[in-house]
């Protein structure tokens, strides 16, 4: 009898501890229904390649934002040439078009001109019109400006399509810093040959990157000048020199140092070149992130036992808890709008990218799996993070208002620590 009951108990424990049965996080679902977008481009037949490339980039931008779904042109009743003469709103309503974006691409003396109209067929209304010029060469920056225009005209929110992303690519024996457009195009290696490379962070003007680089076996905080490629050491103390974060005004860098004892947050003044201690409590304090007004720093601390997110006032020194749910919350990232903080939540060995209000209320879990280091798009609408599976990490992005995670980097490389330009 005893044998049977212990056998049963064993089976029960097996069932309870099975990871497949663990669903720790209810994924936040927004009620948002993406807008059906019809894209039409009119151009001389000799510009066929360029106009289709331009259309591909714009439609990819808008589709990956998940605010739009691009419609199949085979369903369109009117040609681009027709629509440029006269938009027949009924024809677009008939196929369910929420947004009609019309473009006309022409060659100018020294480059390109793109005229754009944005229409709302269900309101019989033109929402806006604009024109863009670009010098000869790559059409990508022009396409991203058009995407920004359509996005802002329809949603009233600035686009992020001309922004850039930095990340760490790990090779067999070293790591390098990669720079790319937000859609993954134009990748280039901007710094290489680090034994370990962690936590890149952009200066607000986009000219510098603060990073935690190991030089030989010594971790340092370095400032990388993206124009010249030169490195300047700003922290080379004994112990930890990690997680640099530029202040919104670009004059200070918060980081984690441990030379005086426990890992604490310090603040570096780029003019006086001096560090000052900012946190005083707890065994571990790390991962600072600034509020966009520069008045607060949120950080991870285990001052009450397990790692949680706190925020501390620059002015008064008062400290408030940010994460209130779960035993383990780390990697805070303050949203550019200032209202929410993204973080990694861990429950029963399951991880999630989550966001909370600054006061800790209204937690939303956006993506699960082995996720790390969330970072915000400059308009606060997207989060990019590293997702690890089968030992390799890939960058994924997900709308901060709920949506589906989508890959940004290929499976063929180990990519982590994304940083989005501001």
């Amino acid at each position, binding site marked *: 009898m005893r044998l049977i009951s212990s056998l049963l108990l064993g089976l029960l424990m097996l069932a309870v501890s099975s990871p497949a049965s663990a669903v720790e996080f209810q994924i936040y679902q927004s009620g948002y229904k993406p807008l059906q977008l019809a894209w039409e481009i009119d151009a001389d037949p000799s510009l066929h390649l360029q106009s289709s490339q331009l259309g591909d980039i714009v439609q990819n931008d808008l589709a990956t934002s998940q605010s739009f779904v691009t419609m199949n042109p085979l369903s369109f009743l009117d040609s681009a040439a027709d629509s440029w003469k006269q938009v027949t709103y009924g024809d677009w309503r008939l196929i369910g078009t929420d947004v009609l974006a019309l473009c006309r691409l022409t060659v100018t003396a020294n480059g390109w001109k793109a005229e754009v109209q944005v229409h709302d067929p269900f309101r019989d209304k033109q929402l806006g019109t604009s024109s863009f010029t670009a010098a000869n060469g790559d059409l990508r920056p022009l396409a991203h400006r058009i995407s920004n225009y359509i996005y802002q005209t329809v949603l009233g929110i600035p686009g992020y399509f001309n922004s850039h992303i930095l990340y760490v690519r790990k090779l067999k024996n070293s790591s390098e810093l990669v720079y790319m457009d937000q859609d993954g195009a134009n990748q280039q290696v901007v710094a290489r040959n680090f034994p370990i490379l*962690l936590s890149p962070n952009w200066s607000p003007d986009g000219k510098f990157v603060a990073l935690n680089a190991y030089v030989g076996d010594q971790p340092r905080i370095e400032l990388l000048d993206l124009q010249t490629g030169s490195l300047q050491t700003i922290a080379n103390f004994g112990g930890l020199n990690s997680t640099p974060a530029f202040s919104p005004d670009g004059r200070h860098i918060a980081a984690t140092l441990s030379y005086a004892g426990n890992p604490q947050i310090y603040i570096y003044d780029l003019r006086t070149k001096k560090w000052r201690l900012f946190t005083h409590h707890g*065994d571990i304090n790390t991962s600072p992130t600034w509020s966009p007004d520069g008045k607060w720093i949120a950080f991870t601390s285990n001052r009450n036992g397990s790692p949680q997110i706190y925020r501390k006032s620059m002015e008064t020194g008062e400290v408030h808890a940010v994460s209130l749910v779960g035993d383990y919350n*780390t*990697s805070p990232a303050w949203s550019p709008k200032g209202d929410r903080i993204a973080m990694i939540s861990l429950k029963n060995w399951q991880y999630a990218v989550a966001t909370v209000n600054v006061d800790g209320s209204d937690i939303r879990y956006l993506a699960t799996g082995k996720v790390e280091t969330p970072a915000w798009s400059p308009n606060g609408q997207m989060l990019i993070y590293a997702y690890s599976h089968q030992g390799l990490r890939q960058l994924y992005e997900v709308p901060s208002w709920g949506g589906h995670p989508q890959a940004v980097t290929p499976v063929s490389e180990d990519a982590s620590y994304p940083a989005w330009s501001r």
Partner: protein
Amino acid sequence: MHSNHIKLAAVACLAAGLLMAGCAKKETVETTKPEAAPVATAKTVAKPATNSVYFAFDKSNLDNPAVATLNANAEWLNANSDVDVTVEGNCDQRGTRAYNLALGQRRADSVRDYLVNHGVSASRIKTISYGKERPRCKGTGEACYAQNRRADIVVDH
């Protein structure tokens, strides 16, 4: 411990200017009866069997096995004052990277502080954290994780 006693025996043997054959014979005997090893040069402290200290998840405090390992290492370091070391802190793959980097530092600092409190000069000890960036065991499961929650006392060269 065995091999160290054998070496000591061999050294003593050579110093006495005995024949090599005699040494070899004596070694064989010593291997089977280590307790009979000569202790004339016992001022030399044997290098400890392990230089690794292990930790519980999200912890940097030292448990009893850790203290035993550190006592042996402190004794050896105190007997070899020309040796400098780096204490390397590591974490398992669970938890997040930046936090684990700080946790690995705390583990390295715990080990350093213990050694300093037991007579080793702080100037001889550097610390570094690798967080979860350099796992010894790359798989999953507690057996693997336990190996990676570790601080190593590594002799500088």
